[in-house]
């Protein structure tokens, strides 16, 4: 009896985590480069009370066994790396990766983080940095007197300086691909860190080795679909409700057992 109570409780807990994930998706519907997360569940262990084929008598056997499941548990929150919509901004340092790959960002700690958010800026030394001020990797410096910055689909950054006619190449933006991007650890601020699950980064020029190409003057919107999240939320809420119903029934049955003896 107690089993059903705990089993239904694991279901309620799972739906709570589901709602948490959905809420975070919805909160980030306007975050540049945000990737939707989805909570995934798996069934917990089973209690084998009687396996199928056990002898019922000397000559017969039970055709079915008796297995009681103990509920569910969240196993992963998977990121869905579906491309978000492109939004034209006209800002020369707004970049999107069309396809796979991440921009590399050097953190103050010296570690490299990865991001899909390509809204870059120039700091007072002329280096290309993220909105948080962390420089991109490899570092690229735009001369102070640059009139125009052109970033090609292969990542080459060229500038036209005042008094010069020809554009001059100042560097190449390289991007990183992962064998398993879903395994990257999100650290907030649109940044991800590599770990054992994601595998090592393969760094390359955009457009090569399956990496995506760069488009200048666009930003990648969040890939969260509000309608889809709303539907998921309704499903999660109803699932929570039916589990709480199972708790109530289990409780009622226990109270009836208590009432057997007056």
């Amino acid at each position, binding site marked *: *009896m107690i*089993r*059903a*109570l705990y*089993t*239904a409780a*694991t*279901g309620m807990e*799972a739906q709570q985590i589901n709602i948490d994930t959905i809420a975070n998706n919805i909160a980030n519907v306007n975050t540049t480069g945000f990737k939707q997360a*989805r909570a*995934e569940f*798996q*069934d*917990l*262990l*089973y209690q*084998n009370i009687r*396996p*199928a*084929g056990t002898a*019922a*008598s000397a000559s017969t056997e*039970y*055709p*079915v066994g*008796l*297995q*009681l*499941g*103990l*509920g*569910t548990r969240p*196993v*992963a929150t*998977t990121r*869905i*790396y579906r491309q978000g919509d492109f939004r034209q901004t006209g800002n020369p340092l707004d970049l999107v990766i069309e396809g*796979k790959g991440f921009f590399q960002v050097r953190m103050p700690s010296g570690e490299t983080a990865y991001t899909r958010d390509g809204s870059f800026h120039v700091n007072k030394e002329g280096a290309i940095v993220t909105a948080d001020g962390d420089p991109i990797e490899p570092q690229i410096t735009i001369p102070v007197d640059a009139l125009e910055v052109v970033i090609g689909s292969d990542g080459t950054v060229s500038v036209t300086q005042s008094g010069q006619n020809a554009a001059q190449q100042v560097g190449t933006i390289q991007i990183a691909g992962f*064998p*398993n991007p*879903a*395994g990257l650890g999100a650290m907030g601020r649109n940044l991800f860190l590599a770990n*054992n699950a*994601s*595998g*090592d980064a*393969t760094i390359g020029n955009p457009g090569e080795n*399956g990496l995506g190409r760069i488009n200048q003057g666009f930003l990648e919107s969040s890939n969260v679909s509000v309608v889809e999240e709303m539907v998921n939320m309704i499903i*999660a809420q*109803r*699932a929570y409700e*039916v*589990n709480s*119903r*199972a708790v109530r*029934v289990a409780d009622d*049955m226990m109270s*009836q*057992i208590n009432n*057997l003896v007056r």
Partner: protein
Amino acid sequence: MDGFFNAYAALEARLRMVDVIANNLANAQTTGFKRDFSRMLETEDGFTLGTQVDLTTGEFMPTGSQLDAAIDGPGFFVVQTSNGVRYTRNGSFLLSSDGELVTKDGAKVLSSNGSPITAQGGDVSIQDGGMVTVDGNEVATLKIVTFPNAMHLQKEGLYRFDWNGLPEEVQALPEPRVKSGSLERSNVNPINEMVHLMTAYREFEAVQRTVKTLMNEMNGKLIQTLGSL
């Protein structure tokens, strides 16, 4: 007194039915989950309860991930776990850092020749029909198997099934209908489960009344007998 013990067994069976239903409801959103249903079995000295797996296919949910696959109709994916070969309907796969195709909890997915699938570099995807391709070139085909019946198919939890029957009864499916970019939802229908839950509850109530009546009658008789002494 026989009626008393039968009623007790009936109460116990309803409690277990509720356990089974609670587990189904808890897994209403578990990818590839197959519901259990309970069956009353007649035995020489009354009855007993058994559970069986309902293998009907769940609905498909498009995910857009190239490494997700669902099987339309019968069949199971084959995975290598630390405890041996197991079977699953959950096709939510990913690549390990060694470039091997694995499940979410790290079990290796096996190919049609029974070895783990390595797909390194480039654009890895699972195609309709179960082919694994890297940049469009086929590197392996997912192994999909079927079983003659569900009787010896035992749930292990963590999406997995274990086959307790004879090993030669596991048959490779020649032309599996694998859908890429989709996952199979749990085949639990919460409405049906609620109906089963209410039925089990009402039956429990009825038996409980019977028990109470039996007890009252016995008490009455006992008092009468004692009084006449």
